[in-house]
């Protein structure tokens, strides 16, 4: 599974791995061997160099051929880099392990050491890059929850925690870091998502104008737009659902935009070339490391990536702990006014948290946009599918005309994602749709008949909750009209889906802090990621059957429940703004026509800044440059190893 949430990096022995052999070493410039005889041995010298030595020559040709006895050919070292791995659908687990060693808090520590005490060693050039840290809001929420639980103290508001990290890392001996969060980048990403949505609408109506003059080779994709901010989902889609890629939003994720923003925009303002900046991000998920390694985020000209190193929340915490950070120690930045946060130390506005979801509010931003651009009042109907907050449908409609303005969904977690894939495949005809497409006439006829029967007895779909936003409501609508409305809701195809691979979304990312266990609080032995070691044997609980839900911490259940509550806690903290003010997540009032007025001063300023940046970028780089700044592309990863079609390369194997 390509999902960070399901992976434990500490358990990498995976007998599946060899089934899809890595062919990169085989492909790499296989030089013609001049040793025509098959029998050779590989020798390894004391420096770990590999040599191919012909044994045949010495044994058979003997002393008559003295040259052969000395024949010793240094073997080329096979190198597999990240891009090779990204281009292969093979050993996902090993890819992950590679990433962890390439982008770890140790790398950042090495950087800090080299910048604070320049090496005397002539061989290594002195570290001159300026460091920049972008922290995701989910990371801050997780750290806040963790340290609160660990020390039994009240949780720190995210803004305060951010400023304390900023102050701590800005010290000269730690490298004079510039520290920002990724919400302003997300703000740009959200604005661009709205623009992309409108582009797709225009394209569908044949009214789209390519402002880049065809340079970019880009055409807006079809509906529904599938959010692409989650790298786990992107990874899965590219490997297993290649046919759905045209639907993926082309907008860069918040990390992607942050990369461009830091290296291209902030760097320019600070007089630095992209390769003169060391950009580190702190993310809730391991797959963000994969995302940062994508070729779109690499600058050939400057041989540098937009994001040089991605740390997970857990790794950022390890780094800060190694450096001696105490989140509860007051700093001079504590009472910084949030309104003037775009000062010398903060590169851009801190912690813009649009109402909606803790995974970025992509869907809610579009809902607000569609609602605001509709001339009449609109109403929002939401329904949870299967009573799960991870699978929710949003229907925005005009209560007067019953016109469905927008139908979206948030779909989190691998299981819901599977159903999304099936559903979208059915709606759009995309996807592999094997069996379904080849239905026999008789089966199709039977289904049609069954459907006709079902429709006559149609009832309210699911456990819906209609929230009239403003103006005339849905009161006293007669049953016929209600049925008509439901029919329209059902018939309307999906416009946008906020897809996240992790259940509960990014607050529950695989790289987040794990719940504080009594062991960790008591300072028991922990592994490199802060989990208690040794891990309990998953099989030993047969010996002492659990007593029930209250069965304590040692049982599976105790763990499960605390995890659920833990994610809930992080989610709550995500919404705690400056001074402990709650930003209501996805409040129903959101879609009212008056929404604009509720936006705070910070948002207005952020909008102005965003506007200015986009203009600046377009002025200097042109429309295509602007596109590259904010957008990206997705590629189907072919079953490279065996040349299979799409993900399942095994199909090519005869068994």
């Amino acid at each position, binding site marked *: *599974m390509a999902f960070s949430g*399901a992976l434990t990096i500490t*358990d990498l022995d995976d*007998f*599946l791995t060899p*089934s899809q052999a890595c062919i990169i070493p085989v492909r790499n410039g296989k030089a013609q061997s001049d040793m025509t005889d098959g029998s050779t041995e590989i020798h390894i010298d004391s420096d770990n160099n590999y040599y191919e030595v012909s044994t045949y020559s010495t044994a058979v040709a003997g002393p008559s051929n003295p040259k052969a006895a000395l024949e010793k050919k240094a073997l080329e070292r096979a190198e597999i880099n990240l891009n090779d791995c990204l281009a292969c659908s093979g050993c996902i687990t090993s890819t992950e392990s590679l990433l962890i060693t390439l982008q770890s808090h140790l790398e950042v520590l090495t950087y800090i050491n080299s910048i604070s005490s320049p090496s005397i060693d002539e061989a290594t050039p002195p570290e001159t890059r300026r460091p920049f840290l972008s922290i995701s809001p989910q990371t801050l929420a997780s750290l806040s929850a963790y340290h609160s639980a660990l020390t039994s103290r009240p949780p720190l508001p995210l803004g305060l925690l951010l400023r304390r990290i900023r102050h701590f890392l800005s010290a000269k001996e730690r490298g004079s870091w510039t520290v920002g969060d990724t919400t302003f980048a997300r703000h740009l990403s959200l604005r661009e998502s709205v623009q992309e949505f409108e582009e797709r609408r225009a394209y569908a109506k044949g009214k789209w104008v390519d402002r880049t003059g065809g340079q970019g080779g880009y055409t807006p994709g079809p509906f529904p737009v599938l959010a692409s901010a989650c790298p786990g989902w992107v990874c899965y889609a590219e490997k*297993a659902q290649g046919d759905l890629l045209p639907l993926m939003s082309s907008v860069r994720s918040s990390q992607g935009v942050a990369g461009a923003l830091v290296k291209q925009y902030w760097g320019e303002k600070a007089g630095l070339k992209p390769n003169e900046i060391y950009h580190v991000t702190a993310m809730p998920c391991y797959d963000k490391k994969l995302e940062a390694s994508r070729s779109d985020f690499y600058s050939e000209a400057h041989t540098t990536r937009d994001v040089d190193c991605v740390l997970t929340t857990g790794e950022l915490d390890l780094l800060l702990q190694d450096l001696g950070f105490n989140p509860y120690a007051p700093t001079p930045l504590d009472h910084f006014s949030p309104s003037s946060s775009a000062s010398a130390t903060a590169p851009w506005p801190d912690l813009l948290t649009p109402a909606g979801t803790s995974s970025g509010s992509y869907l809610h931003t579009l809902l607000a946009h569609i609602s605001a651009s509709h001339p009449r009042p609109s109403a929002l109907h939401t329904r949870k599918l*299967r009573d*799960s907050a991870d699978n929710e449908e949003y229907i925005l409609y005009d209560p007067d005309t019953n016109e469905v303005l927008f139908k979206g969904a948030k779909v989190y977690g*691998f*299981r819901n994602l*599977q*159903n999304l894939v*099936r559903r979208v495949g059915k709606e759009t005809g995309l996807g*592999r749709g*094997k*069996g*379904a497409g*080849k*239905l*026999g006439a*008789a*089966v199709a*006829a*039977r*289904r049609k008949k*069954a*459907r006709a029967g*079902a429709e006559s007895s149609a009832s309210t779909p699911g456990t819906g909750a209609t929230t009239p936003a403003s103006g005339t409501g849905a009161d006293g609508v007669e049953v016929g009209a209600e049925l008509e409305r439901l029919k329209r809701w059902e018939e309307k195809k999906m416009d946008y889906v906020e897809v996240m691979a992790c259940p509960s979304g990014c607050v529950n990312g695989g790289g987040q802090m794990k719940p504080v266990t009594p062991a960790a609080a008591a300072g028991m032995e922990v592994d490199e990621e802060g989990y208690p070691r040794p891990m309990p044997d*998953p*099989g*030993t*609980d*047969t*010996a002492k*059957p*659990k007593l029930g*839900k209250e069965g304590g911490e040692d049982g*599976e*259940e105790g763990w*499960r429940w605390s995890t*659920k509550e833990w994610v809930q806690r992080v989610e709550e903290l995500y919404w705690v703004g400056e001074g402990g003010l709650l930003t209501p997540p996805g409040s129903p009032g959101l879609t009212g026509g008056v929404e604009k007025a509720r936006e705070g001063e910070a948002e207005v300023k952020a909008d102005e800044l965003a506007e200015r940046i986009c203009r600046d970028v377009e002025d200097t780089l042109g429309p295509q440059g602007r596109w590259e700044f904010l957008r990206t592309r997705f590629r189907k990863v072919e079953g490279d190893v065996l040349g299979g079609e799409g*993900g*399942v390369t*095994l*199909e090519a*194997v*005869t*068994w």
Partner: protein
Amino acid sequence: MPQLQLIASPQSHAEPAWAVAFNPKRNLLASCSTDKTVRLYSYSLPSSSKPVHQHAFPSASSDKPVIHHVKTIETEHKRTIRSLAWAPSGKTLATGSFDSTVAIWEELDGDGDEGEEEGQEGVYKPKAPTKVSGDVDMDDDDGDEGQGERDVKEWECVTTLEGHESECKTVGWSADGALLASCSRDKSVWVWEVQPDSDFECIAVLMEHSQDVKNLSWHPHEEILASASYDSHIHMQWDDPDGDWCIFQKLHPKLPLSQINIPRSDAAASPSQGQISAYNSLVTALLPTPEEREAETYLNVPPLLEDETVWSLAWSPCGRFLASGGDLGGIRIWARTGNNPDSPFVEIAHTAAHSRSCFTLAWAQGGTLLAAGGLGILASAGADGKIIVWQITTPVSADGAEADAPSKKPKVSIAPIAAIREAHGVADVNCVSWLQREDGGGQGVLASCADDGSVKVWRVVADAE
């Protein structure tokens, strides 16, 4: 002393046959194979097949059921079909393939003139007024029930379930047919909910096994799913009322092996020739031959210390016990220790059974009466080519009630009652499946299939021929 009697060996698959299953409602048997086909066989039971009492086995000389091949479904699976399962309705068939997909099959509706009103399912149809010509095996038409299926129509793949990343190993329907589960080498167990219009919605992806998931088995009447893996664990899963599908217990085999408990010959009580020869054949089948003993002494392999793969699972008909078959050939019995859906299970027995991996288990009603503590008959088979039938019983107290309260650790006895060597020649036996009908007919009829592509049907008979 009962015995296994071969009653049919219908036409073989071209390549290894992996699974067999009797349709729960219709007189059909299905088998699947590496040749990417599903073969359907019709069976008809003799009129004398009604047992004397519910659990008695027929006499060896009584009329035999008749089985013949009626249809071959050429599937679109790209690789081996590893498993198949009939929905409880008998109308739908699921196949799980090494191409990572699960396919759902339904029989096409009648061609308009007859199928509609009558219903295609024809459960225990009354005798057809006219004989179908050219049907070679209709010589037993005097039966008043359980006639063979004559008009098996085309079967069509109505949907394909994708999601597994590698070989699907087992598929299974829940007791009421509302859920379908599949497991795979990708270490995951998926649960699908059956929707109208042959649609399926994924409701759970359980990824807690650390290795290949070999087998799964649904509880006979509750929504509890057991899965067995190469990681040597059995996971017990359910739909937590307070949450999602999750594991409520991970079972890890621990009990040491105990020797096969061959029951004393009851020939002394009724010393008939048949009894003695049946007993002798059982002993011969179960005990190693001199050659095998000799080979063993030469090899002298120390017992493996590491955990063993769990290959197979089977629930007792009552749902209180679960049997598992291991890589070393032993069979373990697990008992539920409470009355809650997620009551924990404990390992209560581990008996030597096969000399190599126990690939398959099937547990059905039969044999010793329930009142006498009978828990049914368990069939096992595996890489050693043997098929063994076990009588499972639990001690009962004088008043007929089970001696143990369910909360305590129940006791069971596992006694072999019939066994056969080289059931499919030298080939590994991959699957066994009991015929189980609502009317109790055909008790003790067992199908098996093997690596050589052969499918055989056996029955447990009360005595030797």
